[in-house]
């Protein structure tokens, strides 16, 4: 599911979606805000909300994003 497989096309693989979401995180945003914009972009091939959340989970897992106390999702400062 992270990488494309026989059943998951490259543009639906979580890694692809995660990259797209990460691109849009120039400024901290609410999950709903990201979702609304993401849905508009994906109008031609709709993605389920749960799949979208998994893509954000993946970003977190890769230690690229964090959720602030204000409820906004933001990029994590690079520590590497």
């Amino acid at each position, binding site marked *: 599911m992270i990488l494309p497989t026989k059943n998951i096309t490259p543009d639906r693989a979580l890694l692809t979606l995660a990259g797209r979401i990460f691109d849009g995180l120039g400024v901290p945003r609410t999950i709903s805000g990201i979702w609304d914009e993401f849905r508009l972009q994906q109008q031609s091939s709709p993605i389920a*909300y749960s799949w979208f959340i998994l893509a954000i*989970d993946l970003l977190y897992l*890769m230690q690229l994003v964090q959720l602030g106390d204000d409820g906004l999702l933001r990029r994590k400062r690079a520590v590497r």
Partner: protein
Amino acid sequence: MLHRLSSDRAQFKTLAFKPGLNIILASRHEGSDSSAKRRSRNGAGKSSVLDIVHFLLGGQTEGALKSSVVKDWNFTLELDVGPERLAVTRRASDATQVAIAGSSILQSRITNSLWCKHLGEAWFGWTGKKGAGGTSYRQLISFFARRKRDGGLEDPIRTFRSQTSASSETTLAELFGLDTELVRQLHYSKAAIKKLKTAQRALADLDKAAAPGTKQADLEAQLEAQIAAVKLGRDRLNTRIESFNVLPAFRELETELVILNQRFRDLSDDDILDAESIDVNIRSLESESLSELPDLTRLFAEAEIIFPDLVGGRYAEVRRFHEQLVANRKSHLQTEISSARRRIDEREPLREAVEERRRDITKALRASGPADQLLQLRDELSDREGELRQLKGRLEDARKLEVSIEQTEADLDDAIRALRQDRRERSAIVELASTTFSQISESLYEQPGSLAISATDDGLRFLPSTPFDQSAGVMSMEIFCFDLTIALLAQRRGIGPGFLLHDSHLFEPVDGRQFAKSLQIAAQISAETEIQYIALLNSDELDRAQRESGADFSDFVLETELSDLPGGGLFGARFD
């Protein structure tokens, strides 16, 4: 000249034509039984000869050619076209194409419309697809082979029943060598005036005030008078409304009412927007499945394989993050919903206040009678304004129409003058035509008939007449003389197809002596002029003519004879 009519089917009776007079005979074998009587007229296929000749000269699929029996038969006509002798082949099931053999100019397969264009060029000297004045080749050629089915034997100047004067007169002008374009212009102007007058009448009908039968010329004046009356009414209303407005209190109330109305509309619009957002958010809450942990487990498992260094043993942490996301989203949607609800609630008292004030003002305005009257006056004023706009538009239309009509009438007068002038200048042609017609009719009746060609206000009239107008078959003999005149004049000018085809229907009403006489004239003229004359006759009619006149036409009869016996018809077999 036509040489040979044949088909690729052996049972078809091939017809070989000669120069001069050709008589194709159809013999009738009338038995006593009713079936023989029924087929006595149409069995042999005389009219089919005409249909096939027309078909091969670019015409449509008609008569017997429509039958499914012959739709795949190839018919071939050998004929002279210009300097060439060529053969054209066409079949009903593939009528858009014709095959040409023996031509150095044409390709071996061309479209039918190209074939028509070529014939128009070769026989009538056209360079384009149509002749001057919009005449078509098919209309011209019809005067050399009339068909009874189309109504071609009912009037000398028409080759089909519903032919308009414009079409017949331009065609005849072309054949006689008169100016076709002038005739076309005249008829065009006439048609245009008719159309414009219809429009004018329609416009007048709109005008309910106009008395029935009002003269067209009065339409403009009528409209102007109406406009003046409506204007006066409008100005009176304006004065009355202005005098009403001296009460400032009323004006203030009115202004406030307008503002309140706008305010109320704005509030309603906002409510609708909020209600929509509530709806959308509730649907999102319901439809988004927010906690599917098994998927998260799978994600974690996969990530451990793909990024082993990154993941470590932090599943619990990821799970907490996931739940936080979901909770955030849920609370965000909830917040949106509740704030929209709050906004609606907050608006409620405002709306009520506006509504109340509005009610008060309206009541005040209504209760004090004058305001009611004022509103009514306003309504009336806007009605008047609308009426005025409509009338002005109609007046403008009427003026434009009148100008167009005057212009077109002037065009028509010019066309008529030009046509008269042209007719005068070409009097030699007209005289020749009249003389030719008189000569032919004289040899038929021993007393000359006449052909007048006159340029009138209605167009170019061709008026053939023969002596003894009461005798039966006079129309037939007029057509016979008229067609021969056309063929002779065309031949003299070096145009035309070089043949003339008449079938027995033309001669049916004529008595035997005249019939024989006309065949003799045809034989004589065709011998002198190289115009091929082809007559399709019934054998008993020819017998009658020979018996009554003592003449003998057997030299002219073609070898191939048609009959209504089984296998004796043009197509070999009979079908209906």
